[in-house]
């Protein structure tokens, strides 16, 4: 790459993004392959059952910290992951269990991370919000809203620096689009022509705050126009539509044109497991439930004759079985040894790195007087 001036009329038109679509507009899904559709459905059911089991483990206090679930976002999860090559990098926020599964990490290792065990994807150091797997190229779940955007942008910079063919996909929630890191990152990516797809997983609620309450431009994908970046909005409840839109976005990014994709879905439960979501109206709750992407996709597959009752039941049974095995794997995995506490402070060892436990003195304690003839002396 080179420093560039972008004369008007150059590749990114002044009129704005090349692709500005609204939900379900303009891009008819190609003839779906039944086997592929079923594979997507299986993934969706796995994510659904995994998350339900994670919620149960959380309420049983097997899982600590915060626990944010992908319930209601299954179509978005599997559609996005289907568009990536195994060598592509993924950065996500803290609602990422489903994406870890979708990137090919075994459910057992994801569950073991929730359990805080040694065999967890982050070896028990990250928990629900911070899953990482170098081999799967999941470069992190990130707990700080917007925190993943600058590093994801930099990963794309590194790919470009080495003339690589991979791309970075960087996920975020709808609430992230109002934080500075969003704008700084999109600007850098567009300025430097980086191979990155930013995806707004719009479940229409940032904790209890609606998109309309937080965003002066609630059609979030339109923000790409500020950076002359291509963008698209897609129905996040339709796995095929998400997959196809994501493929367009990924192909654009591989050509060094960053892309902003918005997938609109709903959140079936609270912000995290402990949130009863009392701020939601009955109508809203009903609407989200009736749009349940797993149920909807099953109905569609039945309509198309790709799914019968028996297959549906067997897919569900298989998912439940896989999740049970994941729990068993997590339960038998050892807790990390306390002796490893100081193993990951620094990658390059340096002298005087503190390895002191909380109660230990900085220097060896001073000698004390012999207690034999002292009353009330400390033992």
């Amino acid at each position, binding site marked *: *790459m*080179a*420093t560039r001036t972008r004369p008007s009329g150059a590749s990114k038109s002044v009129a704005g993004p090349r692709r500005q679509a609204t939900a379900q507009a303009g891009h008819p899904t190609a003839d779906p392959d039944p086997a592929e559709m079923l594979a997507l459905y299986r993934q969706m059911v796995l994510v659904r059952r995994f998350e339900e089991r994670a919620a149960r483990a959380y309420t049983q206090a097997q899982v600590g910290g915060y626990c944010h679930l992908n319930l209601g976002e299954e179509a978005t999860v599997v559609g996005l992951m289907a568009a990536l090559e195994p060598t592509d*990098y993924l*950065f996500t926020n803290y609602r990422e269990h489903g994406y870890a599964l979708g990137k090919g990490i075994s459910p057992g290792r994801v569950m073991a991370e929730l359990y805080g065990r040694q065999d*967890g994807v*982050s*070896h*028990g*150091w*990250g928990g629900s919000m*911070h899953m*990482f*797997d*170098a081999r799967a190229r999941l*470069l*992190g779940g*990130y707990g*700080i809203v917007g*925190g993943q*955007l*600058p*590093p*994801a*942008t*930099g*990963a*794309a*910079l*590194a*790919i470009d*620096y080495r003339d690589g063919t991979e791309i970075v996909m960087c996920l975020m929630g709808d609430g992230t689009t109002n934080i*500075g*890191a969003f704008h*700084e*990152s999109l*600007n*850098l990516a567009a*300025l430097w022509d980086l191979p990155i797809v930013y995806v707004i997983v719009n479940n229409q609620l940032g904790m209890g705050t609606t998109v309309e309450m937080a965003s002066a431009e609630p059609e979030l994908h339109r923000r790409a126009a500020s950076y002359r970046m291509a963008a698209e909005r897609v129905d996040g409840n339709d796995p095929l539509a998400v997959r196809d839109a994501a493929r367009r976005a990924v192909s654009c990014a591989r050509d060094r044109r960053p892309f902003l994709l918005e997938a609109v879905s709903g959140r079936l439960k609270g912000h995290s497991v402990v949130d009863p979501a009392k701020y939601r109206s009955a109508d809203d709750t009903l609407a989200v439930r009736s749009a349940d992407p797993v149920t909807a996709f099953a109905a569609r597959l039945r309509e198309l004759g790709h799914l019968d009752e028996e297959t549906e039941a067997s897919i569900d049974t298989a998912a439940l079985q896989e999740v049970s095995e994941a729990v068993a794997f997590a339960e038998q995995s050892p807790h990390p040894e306390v002796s490893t506490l100081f*193993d*990951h*402070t*620094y*990658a*390059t060892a*340096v*002298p*005087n*790195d*503190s390895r002191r436990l909380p109660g230990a*003195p*900085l*220097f060896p304690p*001073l000698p004390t007087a012999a207690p034999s003839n002292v009353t009330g002396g400390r033992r």
Partner: protein
Amino acid sequence: MTSMTYREAIRQTLRSEMNRDNDVLLLGEEIGVFEGSYKITQGLLAEFGPKRVRDTPIAEEGFTGAAVGAAMLGLRPVVEIMTINFSLLALDQIVNHAAKIYGMFGGQTSVPLVIRTPGGGGQQLGATHSQNIELYYAFVPGMKVVAPSTPADAKALLTAAIRDNDPVLFLENLALYNTRGEVPDGEIEIEIGRAAVTRPGRDLTLIGYSRTAAVAARIAEELSTSAGLDIEVIDLRSLRPLDRPTLVESVRRTGCAVVVEDDWLTYGIGAEIAATISDGAFDHLDAPVRRVAMAEVPLPYAKSLETAALPSDADLVEAIHQTLDAVAHRRLPQGPRP
């Protein structure tokens, strides 16, 4: 040995590391076309091109965070943040990301990132442009913070920082850029995490870092000539990790210590040093550890006020004399109690 300024030492080190390793690249505001706000990167754009000397928009969080991500994929970015004051805009990326990523993900990826940034007051830049907030980063496990006081140390520590696999905040100082010193010609590296006794002495341990280490060295020489004092000077060099054994070993010999720091006193670097000395040399202390630090105000613009707020040579000399007086008084032979 070659005589050069602190600025030249940094520039030459950047150049030689970029020549040595193609993965080293520079990012920052005004570092390319403008050649650096303080001209550290002068000539580097012409030499290495815009791919490796990358001008960024004014977006500290964005470009510092981008450097974090590039480092995760194995590049060795060196970010220039124009002054340490502006690093606050990148605080989330430095503290929550650069410093956490290695540990938080169970050691699966390191972040070989260097953030170069100058601190320093005394140039009438007012409250927001005169801070010394290296403490914020030195507080955080996962970060390494180094603070060279001489051109030779700048070269050695910057070399070490660039080759290190962890995020290193490399603290420079506006007042040091034009200072000159002898710099060894070949490759030199100083281990991060070690302080240096830059002047051995028996009477008192005088501790500083960055600009204040240079001040401490000069004052010790002056007091040797003018008052016959034999002061030991320690240049911390590394704020995290902190070389506690060197501090304690020195005070066990001298029995007293003065810290001179450009930051605020309360909760400052000197507070950590005083606590360390109290822990490790309690029985050897003949006077309280004295701290000479900035007045606790937002630094004013007016010269009269700014000068009053910053630690001066006179402040330091007085603190040294008062400490030695206290030591002398304590060491007087004790008569029988009344």
